């Protein structure tokens, strides 16, 4: 292996690519923009949206309750709920978001309450809709208080202690750090973006250095030089890898900075009461570890993209080959976001999914070193196979001069 020849090819490709606007955008601009947008942007946006939803006074419908005037009067007195006249099509009203929720008070509710008889209050809502959830919550809170008050009154009337109906309390306490809580929520999303950017960063150079070279007719001239084809393809591969690694480094750095800045910003916006899921701290150890597991994946992507683009006759054809690869990469990355998918030794052998899962754990502060090592090893094997294929393809005339 002549390092001099590889170096000559690499330097030329580096200069050439750094003058290509498309490469610069995918390699530098995108990672620098995506991470702050993803963290700070999404954080600020979600806080703003939740704030707006919380400030809204939900319109709710009360169905029935004509024989329970006391309850109705108390409901009407609530300042954080707007009671609208009952209509039979309340479900449609909720679905079409004209009202946020409805409550059905059973016949003889007050009388049964006074007599200590059981009855059921039904709350209707739009599951998953934030504002409907707030409306239903407020109704739920009102009726819970009413139930507690009724229980208290019954116990007092019978001269029984209040805690008879509540012999013990249940207190749920989070022991995971904010870093871990945040890691499980946003932590899945971030590796997904780092992996995706790693791929997109390598995409343009890979196509330009192979299919682009065929399209411009420069490949013939290049093959006339005494530098061996292996040296040529290795030089090209190193340039594609540089683009991929540069994108990954920028994405990871931008992510760490965004989390740091984003955390401060969110805390100042919410006056220290930001949802822990939005507070993520990525330690330098985490950054280095993510880079460690992403590196062999970047090698794999670079070689695979180079091999695929090499088969194509033109830039356009290369794009059509690479699009399915994008889907192949996105699918396991998305699978890592599914609830309950956890890193196991078997999953450590599935490319992309393994890196995505381990990065998620690293962000939440968990370091399974044996699995990290296994993932590095398996990704390195895949990367080695992809490089061998790319080198082999570069020796084939039917690939280089496909018509």
């Amino acid at each position, binding site marked *: 292996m002549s390092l001099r*020849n590889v170096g*000559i*090819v690499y330097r*030329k490709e580096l*200069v*050439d690519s750094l*003058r*290509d606007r498309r490469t610069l955008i995918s390699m530098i601009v995108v990672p620098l923009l995506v991470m702050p947008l993803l963290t700070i942007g999404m954080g600020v946006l979600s806080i703003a949206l939740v704030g707006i939803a919380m400030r809204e006074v939900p319109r709710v419908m009360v169905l029935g309750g004509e024989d329970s005037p006391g309850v109705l009067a108390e409901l009407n007195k609530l300042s954080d709920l707007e009671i609208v006249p009952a209509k039979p099509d309340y479900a449609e009203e909720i679905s079409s978001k004209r009202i946020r929720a409805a409550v059905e008070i059973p016949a003889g509710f007050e009388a049964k309450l006074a007599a200590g008889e059981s009855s059921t209050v039904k709350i209707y809502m739009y599951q998953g809709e934030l504002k409907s959830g707030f409306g239903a919550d407020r109704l739920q809170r009102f009726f819970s208080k009413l139930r507690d008050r009724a229980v208290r009154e019954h116990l007092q009337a019978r001269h029984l202690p209040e805690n008879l109906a509540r012999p013990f309390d249940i207190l749920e306490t989070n022991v995971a750090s904010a870093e871990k809580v945040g890691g499980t929520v946003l932590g899945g999303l971030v590796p997904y973006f780092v992996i995706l950017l790693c791929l997109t960063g390598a995409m343009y150079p890979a196509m330009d250095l192979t299919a682009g070279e065929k399209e*411009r*007719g*420069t490949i*013939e*001239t*290049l*093959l*006339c*030089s*005494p*530098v*061996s084809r292996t040296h040529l393809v290795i030089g090209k591969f190193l340039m594609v890898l540089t683009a991929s690694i540069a994108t990954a480094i920028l994405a990871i750095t931008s992510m760490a900075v965004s989390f740091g800045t984003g955390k401060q910003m969110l805390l100042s916006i919410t006056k220290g009461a930001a949802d822990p899921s939005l507070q993520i701290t990525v330690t330098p150890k985490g950054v280095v570890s993510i880079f460690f597991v992403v590196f062999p994946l970047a090698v794999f992507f670079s070689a695979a993209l180079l091999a695929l683009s090499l088969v194509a006759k033109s830039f356009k054809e290369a794009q059509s080959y690479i699009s399915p690869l994008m889907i192949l990469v996105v699918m396991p990355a998305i699978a890592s976001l599914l609830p309950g998918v956890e890193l196991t030794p078997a999953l450590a052998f599935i490319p992309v999914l393994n890196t995505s899962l381990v990065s998620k754990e690293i962000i939440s502060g968990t370091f399974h070193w044996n699995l990290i090592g296994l993932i590095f090893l398996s990704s390195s094997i895949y990367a080695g196979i992809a490089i061998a294929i790319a080198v082999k393809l570069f020796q084939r*005339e*039917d690939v280089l*001069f496909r018509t």
Partner: protein
Amino acid sequence: MLLQICGPISYNLRRILAKKIGMIEALHLVKRFHDKKRGTVCAVDDVSFSCRQGEIYGLLGANGAGKTTTLRMLATILTPTEGTAIVAGFDVIKNPQMVRARVGFLSAATALYGRLTAQEMVEYFGRLHGLDEDTLRERMERLFERLEMQEFLNRRCDKLSTGMKQKVSIARTLVHNPTVMIFDEPTLGLDVMAARTIVKFIRECREAGKTVVFSTHVMSEVEKLCDKIGIIHGGKLLAEGTLPELRARTGIQDLEDLFVKVVEA
């Protein structure tokens, strides 16, 4: 000529002679491709010819005749399916890298890297040919001066005019001082002025003692330049000789008519 005088001689002797006189010798070159639609296609079928140092050999043929494939085999870009060629004393199959170091290849497309400057382009190919920095500087200075390239040396290739691109391409081809020049339809798609530059350049190569093989389907270029002509059609070399020899053999003076007669026969 020397080889013809010698008659049937051994491969090693041919190699020694070819090295001595810096020549090209194609020996029964065959190239078959596999095509999905057409099956196995024989692009070049048993082509043999030779070209001496300081001589221009013109490969004359229509589109798809097998000219480019033959030249690509001589330049070691493609490997022959059968047969071989000795270029500047080295076998294209056994020593492709040695052949490449001695060959300058120029095709119809200027084939430049648009984002590199004219100087960077020539530098890159000089380095790929293993030139040390001092030799490279010296060669580039001479080439830039001879081709009057000083004005646009630092301009990106995609911003150059066709004429300027041609000059960069020529400088790129000559930077390693090749003894053998291979031109694949070098004037294709060029205007009269640009084509004249190329024709002048080919002539200068001969005067400099280089061995030149070039392919074309432009009859006037063949008449102007070639010492020897090979008419290729359907992958086969149908006729070969100097222009007067071919005229005498066919009894036709006009080259175009001569070409059609050979091809149709």
